[in-house]
C-alpha cells in the first residue's frame, strides 16, 4: 500500500467501519469525499514516519461535530485544508505530510482526501486505531504529547487556533467553537514531528485497517475458512451470536448513550448487554463484563458480516459480537484512567483482557 487510489478506498472504508466499533461516524460520506478527491487531484503516497526527516512537521485533520449534522451538511473539503493551513500558519512551518488521528470511523478517510487536495503524502500511523469520542483519548496523551495548539475551521472560511495548557482543555475549547460554527467542522490538532510520531504513535494503522478489511471481505465472499482466518489473524474472539431484543437510547451531556440487549440464537436464553457511548464500550455476558474498552467491541450482521453502527441498529437485528484487541501501543501507564471503563463513568467495571 504505497500509493492510494480511488480503487483502494472501498476496502479501507470497510475497515474504518469495523474499527469504528459501533461509532466514529458513518464513513460513507468520507468514502465519497476521498474517492472524489483522489479522482480529482491524483493518488496519495503512503509513508511511514521513519521515511520522513525526524523534524518534519506532520499535521492531522478530522471531522468534529455531530454525525447526524454531517448527514445533511456534507463536507466541502476546503474546511479540512483550512484547518491544516490555519495551524501551519500559526506554527510558522509548512507540513510535510498529513495524518489521521483516528483510524476508525469517518476520520480514517477524510485526511486522505485532504492529503490529495494538498498534494502531500499521508502517514501510515494514528493515535487511536479505533474510534473514541474525545480528542484527548489518544496514545499521544499517554506519551505526553500535547493536542494543542489546535485549529478549527468551517467551510465558509472561518478559522480559529487555540493554544492550550492540557488536552482536556483542548477538548472543551474545540467543542465550544464547533457549536458556534454549525456542528460539522474540521479540526487539526496534535501537531507533531515525524520523530515524535515514530516514537509515540500507533505506526502502521492504515495498513492494519486495510488488512482486517481484506480478511473480512473474504468472509463476506464466503471463502473457505475465512471466518477462522479473520479471527486468528486479527487476534479477535467471537463472544456471542444473538438478536437485539431491547434497545434503550438516551442523550446525556452530548453523548449518545444506549444499551443494547442481545439474546442468543441457540435458545439457551443467554443474554449479552452492550453499553454504548457513541462507541461500544463494555459487553456484559450474563452480568459479567467480558469485553471492555479500550479493546474493541464490534457487532457484525449475521448474514452479511457488515459491521453495524449504533445509529443503524434495530430491534430484531441479528448479530455476531466480537472482541478485537486494541493496538498494543495503548498498553502504557495511564491507559485505564484515559480510556478504560472508569474514564466513561463505569467505576465498578474492571478492565478485562481478551482471552487468547
Amino acid at each position, binding site marked *: 500500500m504505497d500509493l492510494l487510489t480511488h480503487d483502494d478506498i472501498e476496502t479501507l472504508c470497510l475497515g474504518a467501519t469495523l474499527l469504528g466499533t459501533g461509532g466514529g461516524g458513518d464513513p460513507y460520506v468520507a468514502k465519497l469525499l476521498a474517492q472524489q478527491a483522489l479522482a480529482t487531484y491524483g493518488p496519495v503516497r503512503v509513508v511511514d514516519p521513519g521515511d520522513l526527516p525526524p523534524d518534519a512537521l506532520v499535521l492531522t485533520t478530522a471531522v468534529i461535530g*455531530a454525525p447526524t449534522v454531517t448527514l*445533511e451538511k456534507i463536507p466541502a473539503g476546503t474546511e479540512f485544508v483550512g484547518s491544516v493551513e490555519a495551524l501551519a500558519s500559526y506554527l510558522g512551518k509548512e507540513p510535510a505530510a498529513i495524518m489521521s488521528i483516528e483510524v476508525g470511523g469517518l476520520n480514517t478517510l477524510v485526511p486522505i482526501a485532504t492529503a490529495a487536495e494538498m498534494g502531500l503524502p499521508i502517514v501510515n500511523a494514528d493515535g487511536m486505531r479505533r474510534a473514541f469520542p474525545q480528542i484527548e483519548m489518544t496514545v499521544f496523551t499517554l506519551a505526553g504529547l500535547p493536542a494543542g495548539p489546535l485549529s478549527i475551521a468551517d467551510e465558509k472560511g472561518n478559522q480559529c487556533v487555540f493554544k492550550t495548557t492540557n488536552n482536556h482543555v483542548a477538548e472543551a475549547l474545540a467543542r465550544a467553537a464547533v457549536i458556534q460554527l454549525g*456542528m460539522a467542522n474540521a479540526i487539526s490538532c496534535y501537531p507533531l514531528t515525524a520523530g515524535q510520531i515514530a516514537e509515540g504513535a500507533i505506526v502502521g494503522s492504515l495498513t492494519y485497517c486495510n488488512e482486517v478489511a481484506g480478511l473480512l471481505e473474504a468472509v463476506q465472499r464466503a471463502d473457505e475458512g475465512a471466518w477462522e482466518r479473520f479471527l486468528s489473524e486479527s487476534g479477535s474472539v467471537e463472544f456471542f451470536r444473538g438478536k437485539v431484543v431491547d434497545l434503550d*437510547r438516551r442523550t446525556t451531556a452530548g453523548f449518545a448513550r444506549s444499551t443494547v440487549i442481545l439474546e442468543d*440464537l441457540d435458545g439457551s436464553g443467554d443474554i449479552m448487554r452492550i453499553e454504548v457511548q457513541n462507541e461500544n464500550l463494555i459487553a456484559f455476558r450474563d452480568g459479567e463484563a467480558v469485553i471492555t474498552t479500550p479493546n474493541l467491541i464490534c457487532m457484525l450482521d449475521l448474514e452479511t458480516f457488515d459491521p453495524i453502527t449504533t*445509529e*443503524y441498529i434495530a430491534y430484531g437485528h441479528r448479530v455476531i459480537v466480537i472482541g478485537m484487541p486494541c493496538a498494543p501501543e495503548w498498553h502504557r501507564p495511564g491507559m485505564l484512567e484515559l480510556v478504560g471503563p472508569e474514564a466513561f463513568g463505569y467505576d465498578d467495571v474492571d478492565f478485562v483482557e481478551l482471552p487468547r
Partner: protein
Amino acid sequence: MSPAGDSRDLRVGIDVGGTNTDAVVIDAAGEVLAAMKVATTPEPIDGIRSALDGVLVGLEHSRIAKAMLGTTHSANAIIQRRGLDKVAMLRLAAPSSLGISPGAAWPADIRAGVIGTTAIIEGGHEYNGKEIAALDTEAVKRLAAEAVRTGCRSIAVAGAFSPATTEHEIRAREILQAELGADFPVSVSYEIGSLGLLERENATILNAALLSVATGVISGFEGALAEHRLDVAAYLTQNDGTLMMAAEAGQYPVLTLGSGPTNSMRGACALAGVDDAIVIDVGGTSADAGILVGGFPRQSSAAIEVGGVRTNFRMPDLISMGLGGGTIVRDAGADLRIGPDSVGYDVATDAICVGGDVLTLSDVSLAAGRMTGFGDPARVATLDAEVVGGALGWVDEQISIVSERMKSTRAALPLLAVGGGAHLVPDAIPGVSEVIRPKHQSVANAYGAGIAEASGSVDRVYSYDASSREDCLDDARQLATDAAVRSGADPGQVRITTVTEVPMTYVPGGGCRVMVKAAGPLA
C-alpha cells in the same frame, strides 16, 4: 345480493406486477367479492382494463367508491433504464458539500442517461434553521437556462436540512417556474425524503426522472376507470403501504415504486384477520420472510438501493432463502442435498409428479401429503421414504430458523404461509402459535392495495432542553396526525404507527431527531 343503488360500499384494489396484474373487489367488511389475475401488458392500461373487466362482472359499478393501485412499473423503468427523463440537478448547500458531486456514487449508465446538468449553489440551512448562505437567486436562473439548453425535461432541487427548513427549496422552485413556466416539472427534496442529503437528493433525481413514466401509468389507471364508468376516488399505494391521491402521485413516483412487498404482507395479514404475524412467501425458487407489527411491516435499517442508486427509503425487512416448490433434491442418506438451485416455474413440466424427471421439493411435499391438487400422487408413491423425510426435515428446520430470526420477542406469533409454494410450510413450527393459510392469498398484493390507509409523517430536530421530551413528542405526534388527516384519514381513527428518536450526539440543548408516522382508514 343487490343493495340500494345509492350505497357506495365497495373498493377495488389493483396490483400491476412484473408478471401479473391482479384486481379484487372488497366490501365494507373486508370480504373479497371478486378476484381476477391476468398477465401484465407492455402498456399497463391493457392489463388493468382486462382485470377490471373480470372483477366487475355482475356488480353495480355505482357501488364502487374507491380504487387503489399498487405498481412496480416505475421501479422496473429504473431497473431497465427505460423511459426515464433527463434531469437537471440543483443542490442548495454551498459552500458546504462541494467535496461530493451530485450523482457521485451512481452506476455510470444510469448517471449518463438521467443526470443532465448539475450545480451546487449557495443556499440551504444549518441544523438550527439558520442559512448556510443566502440563496443565490442568480445561480438558480442560470441553472434554469442551462437545463433548457441541455434538453432536460425536469429539475430536481435538494437543499441542506430542507426536511426541517423548507424555505430555500420553495423559493428555488418559484424562481425556476417563473423562468421556465409554471408547468415545468420541478421536484423538491423535502417532499420526497427524510434527513440524509445525498440519499434524499438521489431519490429526488430519480423522482424527476420518472415523471413521464408515472404520468403514463396514472393516466392509464384513470383511463381504465373512466372506460368502466367508475366515478371513484383514485389512489396509489406508497412504499410504506399507505395511500396517495392518484392526481398527486404523478408528481411523486418514487414514493410509490416499492409498494409491492408491503402490499403483499399487509394483504396477507388482513385476509387472515391478524395484525402481528410472521409472513413467509414461498415461490418457485425462493422464499421471503418478513414480519408485521401492528399491521405494518417491520422496516429494514439498511440503506435501500433502487437500480444501484442509494436512497433513504424505508422498505420491509425481508430475509430470502433458497427454498421453493421447484428446489431440486439430489442423492440420499448422508449425501442428501437440497437446492440451492431450482427448476423455478418449470416445476409445472419438469417435476416427477407431472411426468418430468427432476426430483423437486414439490414432489416430496406431494408424497408426504402436504401438497394437494397438483401432480399425480401415483408418480411419487415409490419415492424413498428417507429422502422424503430428510428433505422435509430440512424444510421444517429452515422455516423454523427464519421465523425465529424474524421475531423480536420470545412470544409466539401466528405465521402466514402464502405463495405458490406455501404447501411446503409445516402446520406446526416451534415458537409459532398457528400456521394460517389465508383465503384468496394469490391476490394478496391487490388486496393489500385495496385496504391501504392514509398516513402522515414528521421528521425534525427538537431541543429537549427548550421544552420537555414529552412536549416535543406530543408536538411531533400532533403534526403527524394532522398530516394524516390532510391526506384523507378519518380523524377519529388515526393512530400513531411509529415513533423513532435519534439523539444528536454532541449537540447542546438535548437535540434529538424525532420521526413520527400516523395512519388511519380513509374518511
